[in-house]
């Protein structure tokens, strides 16, 4: 065999794609055979064989993962080989395109993958604001507009859940706890590739006529939809799997692989953020998988879980979905809080203020978040008698959130603040999440929610908490840790331009939308009353500025990492955290000797006479 052929044949991306195609065709063929069954006579009328498509996707994913080599170790174990640690490759750019059980490689893979899909979802957001620039004129036919809306929401919600745990959790947690690897390196790699196949499947929805249910996929609307909804359902099932695996891996890593001396009371706050999120993920994600599989069954096997006329209930879907959906949004908030509290001490040169209070806050959020979900259903008529209980739980969750806030504020107090780019993003979190949190109480109050529910007020609220919260700290983490992960420095001035354009653009976009919502504009509409046109136009133009700021960031990233490649200082932020005490990027096995870990925040000058 020639050397090229030898490189191409084997368990790699090319084989994976080929086997994915084969799996897809096999699934389609199987589906066509199954369609002959009399109970599936509806397929002759619709001309759409959802069984084929779903099986095609499923077998395609299996083929992809087998081709990638993800099944090799399980197969060997089934055949009786003893367990063994993975031996990942240590260099070469090719390893980033392969199934690599190396937490640092997976971290970088996640970063690129999340970035790519975030960008695609962001483009869809720009298209939404383009359509909403005017009250009447429709650029997109209504079914395509709803597909754009659905793609934006679905891709963001699916991808952003792993936005911090994937790149930064996988990369940094073993370093921060003094471990050489994560607990389940192969599962870690699998979770990334599941994300990739899931997003590819979602993008195929565009070719299938799209889906018009938005990211929430309410049944029976999703039951009656055309082909494209199957892509949405398979996407979220795979994302749910990926999330469960990430959660499992991170929890196990932090539980079992901490260095000697690293007690829970000394764990870096970022790791606390990761582990609370991970534990929640394991509990919440499976419910989503179940809910969507039931919709798939309704569509293919003619079951009636959500079909009222045949014994099912639309309420069932709403309950299942929001049981996952509410912890989901705290899955988005918590890692951002972890990043915030990890970075603030570095840029104020003080230890984290109220460490135990902050940890209590994170645990409190994780726990209470499972008890609030009916607040999405205040006007639905479901369990209306329980609304006071859910009002209480929803209001209660602001108490642990407040703990995180006070820890941040206390860390800032009397610090020596340096306004670097990561610090700017962290400060923006405090402002944005404050607005997001305060507008949350308007919705927690059930009478007030009667007007706010389903309107742009809700939309502005969750963009403030998710985008204003998570995404801003995501960028803080990027600017902060990219020099560690790549060894290259990002341009500081471009970073500040990015920040200010993004912060001002973001606030200018979503602040008017609170008003628009409370004044009567529902969500997911393609036309709206004339009187909202000015505010919507303002929001749209601001959104274009926000989008432009992302281009500035992209330019900075591409230029610094791919073209200029100036080497970064070994510890540009003067952090005392463990990961900064090694090279950039760290060596393959992280540490020559496992360190014994002391105070996680060794900043600040002790006052005369020792610690207070």
């Amino acid at each position: 065999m020639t050397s090229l052929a030898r490189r191409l044949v084997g368990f790699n991306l090319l084989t994976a794609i080929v086997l994915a195609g084969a799996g897809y065709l096999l699934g389609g063929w199987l589906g066509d055979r199954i369609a002959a069954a009399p109970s599936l006579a509806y397929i002759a009328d619709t001309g759409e064989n959802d069984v084929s498509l779903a099986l095609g996707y499923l077998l395609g994913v299996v083929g992809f993962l087998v081709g990638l080599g993800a099944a090799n170790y399980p197969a060997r174990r089934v055949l009786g080989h003893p367990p063994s640690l993975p031996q990942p490759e240590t260099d070469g750019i090719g390893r980033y395109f392969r199934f690599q059980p190396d937490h640092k490689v997976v971290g970088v893979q996640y970063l690129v993958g999340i970035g790519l899909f975030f960008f695609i979802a962001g483009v869809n957001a720009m298209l939404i604001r383009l359509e909403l620039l005017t009250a009447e004129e429709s650029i997109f036919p209504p079914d395509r507009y709803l597909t754009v809306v659905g793609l934006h929401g679905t891709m963001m919600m699916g991808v952003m859940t792993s936005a911090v745990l994937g790149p930064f959790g996988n990369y940094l947690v073993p370093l921060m706890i003094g471990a050489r690897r994560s607990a389940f390196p192969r599962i870690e790699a699998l979770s990334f590739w599941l994300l990739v196949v899931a997003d590819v499947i979602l993008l195929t929805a565009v070719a299938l006529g799209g889906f018009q249910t938005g990211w929430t996929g309410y049944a029976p609307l999703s039951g009656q939809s055309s082909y494209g909804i199957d892509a949405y359902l398979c996407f979220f099932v795979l994302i749910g799997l990926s999330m469960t695996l990430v959660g499992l891996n991170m929890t196990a890593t932090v539980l079992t692989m901490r260095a000697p001396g690293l007690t829970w009371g000394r764990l870096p706050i970022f790791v606390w953020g990761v582990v609370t999120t991970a534990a929640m993920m394991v509990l919440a994600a499976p419910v989503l998988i179940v809910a969507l599989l039931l919709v798939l069954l309704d569509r293919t096997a003619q079951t009636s879980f959500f079909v009222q006329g045949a014994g099912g209930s639309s309420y069932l879907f709403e309950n299942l979905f929001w049981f996952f959906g509410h912890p989901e949004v705290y899955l988005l908030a918590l890692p951002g809080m972890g990043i915030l509290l990890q970075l603030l001490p570095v840029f104020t040169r003080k230890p984290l203020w109220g460490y135990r209070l902050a940890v209590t806050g994170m645990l409190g959020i994780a726990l209470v978040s499972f008890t609030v979900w009916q607040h999405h259903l205040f006007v639905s008529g479901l369990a209306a008698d329980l609304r006071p209980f859910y009002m209480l739980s929803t209001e209660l969750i602001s108490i642990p959130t407040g703990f995180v806030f006070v820890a941040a504020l206390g860390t800032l107090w009397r610090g020596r603040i340096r306004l670097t780019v990561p610090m700017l993003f962290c400060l923006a979190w405090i402002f944005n999440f404050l607005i997001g949190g305060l507008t949350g109480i308007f919705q927690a109050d059930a009478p007030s929610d009667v007007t706010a529910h389903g309107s742009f007020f809700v939309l502005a609220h969750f963009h403030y908490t998710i985008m204003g919260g998570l995404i801003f700290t995501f960028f803080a983490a990027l600017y902060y840790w990219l020099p560690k992960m790549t060894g290259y420095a990002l341009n500081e001035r471009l970073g500040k331009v990015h920040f200010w354009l993004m912060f001002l653009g973001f606030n200018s976009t979503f602040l008017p939308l609170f008003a628009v919502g409370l004044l009567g504009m529902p969500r997911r509409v393609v036309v709206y009353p004339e009187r909202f046109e000015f505010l919507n136009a303002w929001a749209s133009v601001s959104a274009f500025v926000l989008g432009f700021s992302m281009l500035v960031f992209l330019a900075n990233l591409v230029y610094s990492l791919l073209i200029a490649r100036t080497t970064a200082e070994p510890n540009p932020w003067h952090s005392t955290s463990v990961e900064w005490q090694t090279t950039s990027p760290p060596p393959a096995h992280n540490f020559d000797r496992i360190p014994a870990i002391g105070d996680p925040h060794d900043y600040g000058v002790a006052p005369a006479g020792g610690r207070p």
Partner: protein
Amino acid sequence: MRPSRDFARVLLIWVVASAIATPAVVIFLTPDLPPGVESDEAAGQQVDNEVLTAVATPVLLLIVIFLAYVLIVFRQKGPAIEEGPRIYGHAGAQTAWIVASTAIVASLFAFGTWRLLDAGAAGGGQGPSPLSPLRASGGETLLPVQVIGQQWQFTYRYPTYGGLQTPHLVLPVGRPVEFHVTSLDVVHSFWAFELGVKADANPGVDNVAYVTPKRVGKFEVRCAELCGIWHGYMFDTGRVVDERGFETWIRKQQRLFAPVQRYLTPYSRTYLPDPQGRAG
């Protein structure tokens, strides 16, 4: 530990700012807060919004002032890295924060529950057995109106007028209305903005909501739950008219829709949709 001078300054600025801003917000902003006063329920929601805004204003000011002060006063001067003081926490501040946040949350919960259990429950959908029904008082009788959501048009039935079905919603002023919101296919949501009513329409479910319109005029009806491609176009204009105008309108609709009266499904709280096609 004595509060420092900096802390005293922040507190003072905050107290002054709140003392000015909160009354200003209450006096100038809150009377115009949505959803307005076209009905009792809308007015009730407006009160809730006023109270929440009044509570949110000092909280917002506290954090913003704190942030601004910190960013101005506690900056590193010059390029050399300076170390800050090693403060790990402050029992007094933490306790005060916990107590204050719990107190605010508890009172907001009590307030919200009290408003929710008020008759009519602020115009929101309460399901088939409402906890807070509106009872007719004085000489007014309750007017039941069924709102039928389907893809992509709302229709309305008046059971006390022989099950008359109409494409537009007209209500008499001053009479309490009992909406029965249901759907024939997927989940919709009946939102009468100025009246402050929102109730989800689920197939096979009777979702009850109450309203007492207080003024003659028009109101917007919009669907507030994504129900397919024309969700954004599922809107209409409803009217509140005086009692005589209402009776005139009812008679006109009865004449107009007399031909189809015999074909209408008998009035029922819910209509089970046939999964393959027609409704029951």
